[in-house]
Structures are given as structure tokens and as C-alpha cells.
């Protein structure tokens, strides 16, 4: 396993660098930020001064050299917008995103396993049809509908929950998490259901039944673990989306996460912050992918052998 991890880390390093460089170059293709940060009446001299101060007049290669040199010294540059260190800003926003992502995935996975297995147990039954229909609908409804209507009903109409914010204890988590969980829950339920339908018609389930195993045991012991691999793949992809930041939720509920920060820095051509954010999310996505691979290995001995081979 350690050999696998080492190899995986090495092969992951290159894409990581590729992402960083890609972001670096592409970001600079979107125009220099002088117009945004200088008053409209700034003179050409002031403009030139701004560009020089921020090193934007150097060749892209020279800028990249500076940037990489900085990274080696753990210096990720400063934000044009706030003047703060870009690393500080990214690191401050990331925990909020992670908390939201983990709670959302936890609820989505547990919910999807329960609903999906239940639906798969009697495929094509009324219960299956209803749960499939609801999960498909959930997966296709625009998330900001939930957000805004949720605010409208539960905060303004009923006064049960705060409209937004993060400092309100558990209650302030309800609307953001509920908004975020809808789509993953719908998608995952569909995936779990599909995988469970095939798992439940597999010969080993028949064997288990011939041993006198009850319904619950068949579902939880025999089918679920076999159905877990595709669910894990999709859950991983969904989690990647969440780690990249939940822009809608962060915007509407004022959740200080990395998605909003990334968008603001793209729109603000705040390259240093963007690069710091991308570095952070890319690293966590690579870690996440490795965890998923380990998950596959834990689920299935056959994968384990290939991994350690």
C-alpha cells in the first residue's frame, strides 16, 4: 500500500504542476487588472507604475519564475484587492468550504444508501418509482431556487432559521446544507439504486438467500458492499465539485468559502489569490482521489492486489 501511495503521489505531482501553470497562464490571458484597481481617471504614468509595481510588465516566463520561486519559499504573493497575503486568504476560506462539503456528503451518502437500497429492493415497484422520480427531480432543480425560497419561507415567513451567516450555530447550517445536499442526494440515490439492482440480482445474493439470510442481511451484508464502487466514483466526483466551492450557497448565504473567493479573484483579476486557491483545492482534490482509490481497495480484495502488485 505504501508503494502505491508513493507512486500515486509522484504521478499526481505532475498534474498538480500542470494545473498551477495552466491557471497561471490562462489567468494572465484575461487582461491586466490595472483598470480595475486604478481609478478611471488614472493617468498613463500611474497605470505604468501600477503595472511595474505588480510585476505585470515582466515577460510571462519571468513572472512565472518569480511565482515558482515564491512558492518554494511558501510565499504566494499578495492580493491586489485586499493587500493581504494570498495564502492567508485562501487558508481562511477553505475550512468553511470543507465543513460544508463534508457535512453535505455525509448526509447525501447516508440518505442515498438508505433510499437507493430501499428502492432497489423492489425494482419497478411503486416505492421505487416514487423515490426515483423524487431523486431525479431533486437532481435537476436549480439550487438557487431552494436557497432563495428556503430563505423566504423559513427565515422570513416562519422565522425559524436565520436568513444567512455562519455565526448562528447549528441553525445557520440548515439552509446551506439543505440547498447543497439536494443534487448530490438525487444523483447518488440514482447511482446506488442502479448498482443495488444489479447487485441484488447477482448469483451471490441467491447463494446468501439459500443459506437462509434475511432481507436486511442480504442488502446490508451482501449487496451493498458490491454496489459501493460505482457509488464511490460518483460520490468522489460530487465531492470534488463541493471542494471547489459551492458558489451559489456561499454567495446567497454569505458563507465565507473558497468558491466565492475564487470567483471574486477571477473577476477581480487577483491572480495571486486565484493561484493560491487553486493550489489549495487542487491538492485537496488529489488527496481526495487517493482516498477514493484507497476506498476501492478497502472494498474489494481484487483491487487491493492490483494496487500492491
Amino acid at each position, binding site marked *: 500500500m505504501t508503494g502505491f501511495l508513493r507512486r500515486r503521489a509522484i504521478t499526481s505531482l505532475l498534474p498538480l504542476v500542470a494545473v498551477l501553470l495552466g491557471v497561471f497562464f490562462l489567468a494572465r490571458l484575461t487582461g491586466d487588472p490595472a483598470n480595475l484597481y486604478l481609478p478611471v481617471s488614472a493617468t498613463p504614468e500611474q497605470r505604468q507604475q501600477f503595472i511595474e509595481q505588480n510585476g505585470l510588465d515582466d515577460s510571462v516566463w519571468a513572472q512565472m519564475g518569480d511565482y515558482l520561486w515564491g512558492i518554494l519559499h511558501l510565499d504566494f504573493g499578495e492580493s491586489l484587492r485586499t493587500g493581504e497575503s494570498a495564502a492567508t486568504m485562501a487558508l481562511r476560506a477553505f475550512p468553511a468550504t470543507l465543513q460544508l462539503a463534508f457535512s453535505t456528503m455525509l448526509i447525501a451518502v447516508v440518505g442515498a444508501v438508505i433510499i437507493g437500497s430501499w428502492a432497489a429492493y423492489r425494482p419497478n415497484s411503486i416505492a421505487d418509482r416514487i423515490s426515483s422520480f423524487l431523486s431525479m427531480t431533486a437532481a435537476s432543480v436549480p439550487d438557487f431556487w431552494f436557497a432563495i425560497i428556503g430563505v423566504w419561507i423559513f427565515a422570513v415567513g416562519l422565522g425559524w432559521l436565520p436568513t444567512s451567516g455562519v455565526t448562528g450555530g447549528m441553525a445557520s447550517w440548515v439552509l446551506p446544507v439543505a440547498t447543497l445536499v439536494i443534487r448530490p442526494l438525487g444523483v447518488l440515490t440514482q447511482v446506488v439504486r442502479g448498482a443495488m439492482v444489479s447487485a441484488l440480482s447477482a448469483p451471490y445474493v441467491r*447463494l446468501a438467500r*439459500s*443459506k437462509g439470510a434475511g432481507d436486511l442481511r442480504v442488502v446490508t451484508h451482501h449487496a451493498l*458492499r458490491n454496489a459501493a464502487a460505482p457509488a464511490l466514483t460518483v460520490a468522489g466526483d460530487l465531492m470534488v465539485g463541493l471542494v471547489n466551492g459551492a458558489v451559489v450557497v456561499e454567495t446567497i448565504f454569505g458563507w465565507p468559502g473558497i468558491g466565492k473567493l475564487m470567483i471574486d479573484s477571477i473577476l477581480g483579476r487577483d491572480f495571486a489569490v486565484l493561484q493560491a486557491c487553486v493550489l489549495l483545492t487542487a491538492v485537496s482534490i488529489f488527496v481526495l482521489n487517493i482516498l477514493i482509490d484507497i476506498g476501492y481497495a478497502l472494498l474489494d480484495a481484487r483491487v487491493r492486489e492490483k494496487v500492491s502488485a
Partner: protein
Amino acid sequence: MSTAVMSVHDLTVDIETPNGRLRAVDGVGFDAVQGETLALLGESGCGKSMTAQAIVGLLDPVASVSSGSVVLNGTDLVTASRRKRRAMAGPELAIVFQDALTALNPVYTVGTQLAEPFRIHRRMSSRAARAEAVELMRRVGIPHPESRVDAYPHQFSGGMRQRLLIAMAVALNPTVLLADEPTTALDVTVQAQIMALLKELRNEREMAVVLITHDLALVAEEADKVAVMYAGHVVETGAVAEVFSDPQHPYTKGLLESVPVHVARGSDLASIGGTPPDLASIPSGCVYQARCPLARDRCVAERPVLHQVAKGRAAACHYSEEVSR
């Protein structure tokens, strides 16, 4: 000694298809006797596996038992509650499936899977169940069971996997053991070992074995009695030696003539002309009429019922006397 521990009577299984309902098994009946092997013999598609599935209650949801009874130790499995059936699955009735690789759960160790019957029915601790699993593995002839108990199914050879399936089936000394084509996927030498193991276990545990197969040679060597199936019907029953030496149904006869050992050296190897009927187009008279050399008007008009042709023997043919000649 010849106590029937399980009697199957008039078992009928229907299947729902997009084109309507089909009768896959029609009025099948036989008795399984303690310490004896009964072979259900027939070509693929004749309904023999579906009969086995109906008995153990593992039919696909499209198929259902529409009439008949399976009485085991005084309980009719067809009408028994799900709970009752579950309680009987393992200690009283067990089945060995044909494809051992897919039948074993790929994500669990064989030890876990072998221990499962003990965990479910005897509520043993996992350690005790594991000890039983090792013991079972040793009994079915798996070398070094202590070290292999934590291995996964794919790490075993085909023969070993089949042994594991058998071990699982006999774990709780069932009254009746169904073996559904247990050796199909195996090569000949391994086949012989597996069959020997089955016979050994049958004698040791005094089980009634129902062997489902298409292999005449296997039936000749392993079974005491045979029920020949064709298109969902039992067309002939009796002791193996008698049926094979003196078939009373033209289908049985045709089958025997298509096997080299039963044909005199030098003469042509016969084969049965035509193909078995599609379940959707089973004729109203004799099911075998289309391929039968003896077929005549009566066979089209009237379906022959299984009737006694000799002591302990029955055949479903209007002209069974003509067959043996």
C-alpha cells in the same frame, strides 16, 4: 430405508414475458429419498433448473409457482411463510449452484461466507463460526484451511471454489441437497473428484441429493433414480439402471442413442432430429410430438400423462410399450 423426505407434487411454474405468460414447468412431481441421489435429467431449457429454483424459493421475480406442492419434513414450501422458509434454508434444504465464481461474493473472504450459515442459524460468535468454517474446508478437502480461510474467492481454482460451495451447502447437515449442474464448468478429473465428494458427504450425512444435470454419464454413475424432463414436463422416471437399459419414452431413448457408449461400435451415432419447442409454442397434445418417431394422431390430440409402466417406473407416452422394442 427408502423414506421419501421431500415430495414434489404437480409443481407448475409460470413466467411473465413481454409476450404473455409462459409455462416453464408443468405438473412436475418426484420424491427425494434419504441417502439416495435423484437425478433431474434434461437438455438446457427443459425446466430442470427452474424446478430447483422453485423448490428452494429463489425464482426470478418474473417466475412464480402457480400450483403444486413441495413437502419437506411435513412443511409445504410453496405455501410456507417467508420466515419459515428462511428458517429451513440451510438446516433442512440447501443448494449447490453451478457457477462457483459468480456465486461466491467477491468482496468477502471465503471464511466469512462459510461461517455465515452458522452465524445465521446457530447464532454463533464469529470466532466459533470461523472454527466451523475451517473444519468445513478441511472436510471438503481444501489444503491448509487455516491459512486459506482468509483468502478471497478469486484466489481459488474452479474446483476449489466448487468445493467451497458444497461445504457451504452441507454446513448445517440439510435433509435435502440440491446440486444444480455442480460440475458443468469443471474439467473431467476435477468433475470426478467433486462428484466423489458429494457422494461421500451424502452417505456420511444421510442426505437426499437431487442432482440436476444434462450429463447422461454423470447420471449413470452417480444417481440412484432419474426423472427425465422435456419442455417442462417429467416424461419418464425410475431407477437409473432400469431407465437407461430399457427406456420407456422415445425422448429418453433418443437421448441414450445420442451418447457413444450406448451405441454398438460401428453403427451410426444417432441424434434427435429437430429442436425442443419454444415455451411459447408448446403443442396441446404430447410435448414431444414434433420430434417423436412414433408420433401419430392421438399424440396431437391428447397429452399423455405419467403412468406406471413397471414397478417403480413411469413414463408419459401413449405408446411406451413400442419404445422398448
